[in-house]
């Protein structure tokens, strides 16, 4: 197995899949980077470094630099998908989802149902999300819960290079619209990636650690935070069942409920504000479906109900941390 980081895994997967399927096209702001300027046709290859080389290999018809027009990008992806292509649209920052929301929410998400099941919309939208780069309120949000709430969209959040490959491949082979969330602070995370074809089924959570005392549910960047906390707690003899959801729609309810039924304690870690969040959703599922297993009220670790701040100290205070997870686990164990 090759070792690569998430950025490289995404680039390699796009490369391989575009090679395999000529219907796949990539579009977004600066995915080529430099189109039409004196500096050449592929000056950047995407500001996140995920799309270099695609233009050189597949050309301007399949790798399309767009103007800064999020509604047009997502709308064009929707229309191209209806017309038989497999577009991969990039939203450079997931926060911009607001600019293009109609095309995701009222259009892509609803085509299949609204048109009586007679169509598919195989579009993948790559959304670069998350805090950790002091990018402040409009460039740091984790809007996966909002999109998870929309029937018709699938929501995917890889936390490892292997999953980045497996989940993106699955997204590109499937026929539903997929919101593929890439955490901007995870691009450099390295790991082994299976060679050859590797598909990771959606709705199948990963049990990262098995401990048996407390269930900690995470996704995206929070998986790593959960691992740090679990390591610390293990040293104290506290065993954590650490779950990486991989996808929030579909959600692997079974993995969560099975674990909570065994541990009786739930911590959900969610990099977003608390109200109507993924944390609230999972806590509600567990409270309604596994109530009698619970030995303590579910704990929700999220940001505060505020926008994400700029200053280092403030952003650190906003984002959930391994320490907060540890504290929550200890509190649950002390609950009586």
């Amino acid at each position, binding site marked *: 197995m090759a070792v690569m980081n998430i950025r490289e895994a995404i680039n390699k997967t796009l490369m391989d899949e575009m090679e395999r399927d000529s219907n796949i096209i990539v579009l977004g702001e600066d995915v080529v980077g430099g189109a039409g300027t004196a500096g050449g046709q592929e000056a950047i290859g995407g500001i996140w470094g995920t799309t270099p080389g695609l233009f050189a290999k597949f050309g301007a018809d399949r790798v399309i630099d767009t103007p800064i027009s999020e509604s047009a990008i997502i709308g064009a992806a929707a*229309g*191209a998908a209806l017309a038989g292509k497999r577009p991969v649209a990039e939203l450079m920052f997931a926060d911009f989802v607001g600019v293009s929301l109609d095309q995701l929410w009222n259009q892509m998400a609803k085509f299949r149902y609204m048109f009586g099941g007679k169509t598919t919309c195989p579009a993948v939208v790559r959304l670069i999300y998350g805090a950790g780069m002091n990018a402040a309120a409009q460039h740091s949000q984790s809007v996966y819960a909002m999109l998870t709430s929309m029937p018709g969209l699938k929501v995917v959040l890889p936390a490892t290079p292997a999953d980045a490959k497996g989940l993106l491949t699955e997204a590109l082979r499937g026929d539903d619209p997929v919101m593929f969330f890439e955490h901007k602070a995870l691009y450099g995370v390295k790991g082994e990636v299976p060679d050859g074809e590797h598909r990771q089924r959606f709705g199948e959570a990963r049990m990262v650690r098995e401990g048996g005392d407390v269930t900690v549910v995470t996704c995206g960047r929070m998986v790593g935070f959960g691992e740090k906390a679990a390591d610390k707690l293990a040293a104290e003899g506290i065993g954590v069942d650490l779950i990486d959801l991989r996808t929030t729609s579909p959600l692997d309810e079974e993995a969560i409920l099975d674990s909570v039924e065994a541990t009786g304690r739930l911590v959900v870690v969610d990099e977003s504000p608390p109200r109507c969040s993924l944390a609230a959703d999972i806590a509600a599922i567990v409270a309604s479906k596994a109530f009698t297993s619970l030995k303590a009220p579910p704990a929700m670790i999220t940001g505060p109900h505020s926008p994400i701040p700029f200053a280092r100290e403030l952003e650190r205070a906003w984002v959930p941390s391994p320490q907060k997870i540890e504290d929550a686990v200890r509190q649950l164990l002390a609950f009586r």
Partner: protein
Amino acid sequence: MQLSREELVGAYRRMAIIRQFEERLHEEIKTGEIAGFTHLYCGQEAAAVGVCDHLTTEDLIVSTHRGHGHCIAKGCDVKGMMKEIYGRRDGLCKGRGGSMHIADLSVGMLGANGIVGAGAPQAVGAAIAAKLDGKGRVAIAFSGDGACNQGTTFEAMNLAVVVKAPAIFVFENNHYSEHTGVDYAVGTNKDIASRAEAFGMKAWRANGCDYFDTYETMRDLLEYVRAGNGPAAIELDTERFYGHFEGDPQRYRAKGELDRLREERDCLKAFRARVGEAKLLDLQLLDDVDAEVAQLIEEATSEARAAPPPDPAHVAEDVYVDY
């Protein structure tokens, strides 16, 4: 004029179907049997038919809030549409979409839309797909004078020019966006085609109440787009006989305005006058078409009324292909 007798009768037939389909809906809605909001296209028939008569099922269109006419002109099954509007199980969209969301991808009709201005970017995407396939297909965005004020339409026009996609922006200016007049809502010179020109594409203008003017202008436009010149636009000056939605009392209309429109700007009357004066067709032939269409609409309506409703057990099906 190069249209054959057969083509002329066909064009009239399609316009007559739209007209009678909608006049019938206008009556049926009063019975309370049809749920929801219905936006009638009546009066604009020459626009939809004049545009779509040039297209094959391989060409793609996205439609508007007022989509029945585009659906019929593009070849959607009329009985399936009626069942859909009645919310029936065997409706074109299984009773899930209703009047505002009729689609039939098998004839290149990518959907009517409940959101004003949402279709234009989708047409650009479809045009990008068409360009990639290299088979000379085009994608058409029908938009009204309401949608011409939405940012999505502007974004779509710019993107289409940038990527040189075979996208065609058809602006049907029926002078009202919902209840607000075009003189108020469209700023500066009121000329929508000039907005398209400002984005760097060639734009045409035609009388959307005149089938022949629309058809001939579209022929020039399509020749230009299919030759690989990138996107183009056309503004069609047309009329809407009914309100924004059924039940709209149209108090914003000037006194006598509707009577005058029915008298002077009825595209079916104009068509009959034109072919009669030029002795292109015997008008009796068109009367026969009217009678035949009336039979079709009667059947479509009674079949829709009698058709079974959807089973509530299927309420959450077809959200995903695979979940």
